[in-house]
């Protein structure tokens, strides 16, 4: 009986030791990737920033409109548009297409879909395509600061890091291709 008990205890201890590192390890690092490619010049630029690093660095930068991880927005810069009220209205609205503009060479679409704000711009004349997808959680985090004329960028980065893999921005024209996305890979490929 004692031997069996010892065996069970040993098994439990060994199992705990084997699983402890996995249990103790936090969620993996997440990275913000920026990739700019220019096919005509054969150039490419890749930037990979660990989000935890961005989150820690941002509050230390105090220059211009950026203070302690918050961005101040002057009413003059926004042509008296209340950006907070605007974002808050979008946040609380159900999934919907808010803006659709169709012109001869241009299509613009702003919508809320599956918990994301989605912006599509197509410019046929210039051959440009812009797609922006921002998770609503990030918008919530931006508005989480108490002050009316500020956006909390640090909180937005935290929210981005908690959100899943996401393609945030793509811009394409005849020669250039820009991509900004978040995932857990430490390289752009």
């Amino acid at each position, binding site marked *: 009986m004692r031997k069996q008990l010892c065996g069970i205890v040993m098994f439990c201890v060994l199992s705990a030791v084997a699983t402890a590192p996995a249990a103790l390890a936090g969620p993996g690092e997440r990275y913000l990737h920026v990739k700019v490619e220019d096919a005509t010049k054969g150039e490419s630029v890749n930037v*990979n920033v660990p989000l935890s690093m961005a989150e820690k660095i941002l509050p230390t930068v105090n220059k211009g409109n950026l203070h302690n991880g918050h961005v101040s927005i002057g009413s003059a810069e926004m042509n008296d548009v209340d950006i907070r009220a605007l974002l808050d209205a979008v946040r609380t609205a159900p999934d919907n297409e808010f803006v659709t503009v169709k012109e001869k060479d241009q299509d613009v679409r702003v919508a809320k879909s599956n918990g994301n704000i989605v912006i599509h711009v197509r410019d046929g004349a210039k051959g440009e395509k812009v797609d922006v997808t921002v998770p609503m959680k990030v918008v919530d985090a931006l508005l989480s600061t108490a002050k009316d004329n500020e956006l909390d960028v640090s909180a937005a980065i935290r929210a981005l890091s908690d959100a899943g893999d996401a393609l945030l921005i793509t811009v394409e024209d005849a020669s250039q291709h820009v991509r900004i996305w978040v995932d857990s890979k430490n390289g752009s490929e």
Partner: protein
Amino acid sequence: MILLGKVALGIVGTAVAGVGLLCSDGMVEVKVVERHPEVHHVYVIAPAMLVPIGMRFAPRRELSHAAAQIQPWMPTIRAALDQLRESDDVTLVEVKQPGEHVRVAKEGGSIVVDVEEKDETVHVSTPIRAISSTVEQLAASAPSI
């Protein structure tokens, strides 16, 4: 004879400890290969600890301007270096152009810069701890107000 052995052991022990201490911050590695007009190879490997020590002997007057400029950014630099030290290995920036490739990465405990051009290849690897100590030394040499 035994006394001589003890003295020798003491000397060897001190030497080993000294080398260990000197290398404790890692090594700075610089490798340059020039291919044009003539082929030149330059390879320097030195204990990283020598860099902040060397900073102590640099003339303060020469450093004060750089120190004054770096001072306001010290919290940002500290935060960046701390996070880099803790982060996994990552290629931070990579630029590719025809005939040119630049890469800045965090590898192990070091920041590695690789530049490849048609006529030249440069590889520099510096331990983050050494960068941190050097920057702190530089900031400390700022003139006090």
